[in-house]
């Protein structure tokens, strides 16, 4: 298991390096001119040249890259060109926002989709049809649209939740919950549909297995058969899909953060990319890739715990 984890960790580090390097060069060869944008439309050519020098953009791209890399490996991701704030601070402020959103959406997805998937598989008939139909609709509706409707109805019209903004968990737990409730629901709707369908499918497969029939014939309570035996065997498939959904949710959060005015990783990434704030873009990419690597690693560990065959593979 240790070797397995070390291999995964090594691959993860290589992935971070490759993606960060690719991002650096891609953002450096766009031909864009962040110095002009920072200096302003009316700044003179001399001022723009001075700004370019201040940002180090008049140095060869390879020099800039080695400079950035040597600082990055020491944990210094540089300073945002557009806000003059340290990138680590900006990412550090945005990470709890996105993680709150994505983790809440994941918990919501896991809870609701497992219940829906199991109910659909066990009940069958019209319940299954209805749940499947709802899943298809939920999957088809874009999450930003769900977000906009929720914001309009529950925040603007009824005033039950804040329409925009994030409240840190530490200072005000109830405010935090209020600030992420609507965005999390909007983000989770599509994922719930996907994971519920997978759970339903794998539960139906497991429930058709001989050992389930044997357990039933031995008189074990239905709840025990379902939750202790069938669900545990159906879980790896759902968990794999859920882990993929977690990563997809990080991507989906970009739009949802905009709809609810949350300054998370996604919102920071889009504004940094559109401005040409290369240090911030790079910082966000590095942190996001690390996050994805860690999540994949955790999922591998949990899958290995659930199914020892995975460890050998």
């Amino acid at each position, binding site marked *: 298991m240790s070797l397995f984890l070390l291999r995964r960790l090594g691959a993860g580090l290589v992935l971070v390096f490759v993606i960060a390097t690719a991002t650096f060069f891609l953002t450096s060869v766009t031909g864009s001119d962040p110095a002009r944008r920072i200096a302003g439309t009316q700044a003179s050519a001399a001022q723009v040249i001075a700004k370019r020098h201040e940002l180090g953009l008049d140095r060869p791209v390879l020099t800039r890259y080695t400079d950035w890399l040597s600082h990055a490996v020491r944990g210094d991701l540089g300073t945002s060109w557009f806000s003059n704030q340290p990138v680590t601070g900006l990412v550090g402020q945005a990470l709890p926002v996105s993680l709150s959103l994505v983790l809440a959406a994941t918990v919501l997805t896991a809870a609701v989709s497992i219940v829906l998937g199991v109910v659909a598989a066990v009940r069958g008939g019209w319940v299954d049809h209805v749940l499947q139909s709802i899943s298809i609709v939920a999957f088809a509706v874009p999450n930003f649209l769900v977000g906009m409707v929720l914001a309009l109805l529950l925040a603007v019209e009824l005033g*039950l939740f804040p329409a925009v903004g994030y409240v840190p968990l530490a200072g005000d737990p109830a405010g935090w919950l209020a600030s992420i409730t609507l965005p999390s629901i909007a983000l989770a709707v599509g994922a719930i549909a996907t994971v519920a369908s997978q759970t339903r499918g794998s539960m139906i497969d497991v429930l058709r297995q001989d050992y389930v029939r044997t357990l039933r014939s031995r008189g074990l309570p239905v709840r025990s058969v379902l939750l202790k035996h069938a669900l545990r065997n159906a879980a790896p498939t759902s968990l794999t899909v859920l882990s993929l959904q977690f990563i997809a949710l990080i991507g989906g959060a970009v739009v949802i953060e905009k709809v609810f005015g949350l300054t998370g990783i996604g919102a920071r990434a889009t504004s940094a990319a559109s401005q040409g704030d290369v240090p911030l873009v790079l910082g966000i990419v590095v942190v996001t890739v690390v996050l994805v690597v860690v999540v994949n690693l955790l999922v591998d560990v949990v899958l290995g715990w659930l199914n020892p065959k995975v460890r050998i593979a």
Partner: protein
Amino acid sequence: MRRLLVAVPAAALVLTVSACGGAAGGGGANAGSTLSLATVTPPKSFEPGAMAMGGPEDHYYQAVYDTLLKLDAYGRPAAGLATNWNYDAANTTLSLTLRSGVTFTDGTKFDAEAVRTNLEHAKKGTGEAANALKFVDHVKAVDPTHVDIVLTSPDPSLTAGLARSAGYMDSPKAFTRGDVATRPVGTGPYRLDAKRSTAGDTYVFTRNAGYWDKIHYPYKEVSIKVLDDTTAALNALRSGQLQGMPGPSKDIVEGARKAGLTVTTFENGTMEGVFLWDRKGNNTKALGDVRVRRAINYAFDREAIVKNVKGGLGTATDQVFGSSTPAYDKSLEGAYGHDLGKAEKLMAEAGYAQGFSMTLPDFSPVYPNEQAAMTEALKSIGIKVTYQPITGDQVVGSIIGGKWPANFFSLTSSSPWAFIQLAVAPGATFNPFHVSDPKIAALLKTVQQSSGAAQDKALKQLNAYLVDQAWFAPWDVQKGAYVSAKTVKVTPIPGIAVPPLSGFSPAS
């Protein structure tokens, strides 16, 4: 029963969360004590000399900084940190008398030395504010309350600049600390509460207890939330979480009006239309002929453009100087009334009866309606336009580099002289082909070296000549829009992009 046991706590949780949500977003409850505004961008830098001349970032800076001069209700320079100002006979030394008894929030005294430190630092900056100080040669602290700003040559727009971002005063100690870009220490009405602010997201400003002009800033606290999604900002306003936001487009303004919010419109000092850069005909020969430039002017139906494209957020005009400026001449309005017959005749006289082609930057992703209107008008007189894709941050560089013969554009200026320095003078940033004209050169000299009525007369003559020579094809002077809740009264200043912080007060 079991279902009930689940449902009751769930409902309680939703009610608890929503109750807290209401409290968390309680902008309405704080009305009168906290002013909560939205803006589209965070502050780039609090360092004097690094800021833009004006725009959506103004509120951050106005909260913490005073300017040497302020603007009165008509957009004219008025007393600020300087209570009196006057030029010498040659218009090359501006003498300021400073307000006494003012201190920065770090306890440092505001005096002539602080002014000298700020202006000399700002002049070296890389922002538009520094550009506004380009004629400043040096600053002399005569005594603690008197300063002389010595210029290399007269600058009729200097006082306007000192009433904007070029006049922000930071504590002299701030320049030695190394964090001047993120930690402002001004003499302004508020101080930045760094602990309650989140960079790039929310900025909280608390009252500066010893502020000398409290009466114009009735709120104890100002909170500015960065929201680049206007729908989200509008939702926040409608829910009472925020009290004001800029109205950047006719769609947002219409949406705000339908939602029962207050929309305040004002002339924001921005002229927009088609800027005919290539007056020499270097890139597109036809534009070197004044008859073609006049024909283009006749091709635009300005009233229709303002109505249909701008949703009424503009005032149609044939001249580049706004109606509140001394350069404006009412008699020039209608000089180029929409007249395709005249336009075609002029094109034929110039030898372009069959029209000609131009390649222009494609602004359709940002200005689809403006571009469509321009294309249609040019097509109506036989000018075929091919559009070349361009990214947002390449626009200005490519214009300045002389890549385009013309394009739809907008330019904001603090005064006629500032506009001249931006887009008319031979070395101006937005005179990319460095076009010069003896008559214009002579008028510029007169404007620069005169003052009062003589200067106003020369400005009007220059304006008339620019219109006659069709250096530009202006459409309208933009009307800015600011959307606010009913709890707030907003008073804009003409010529300023966003109503100043001193223009916000409780409606009651």
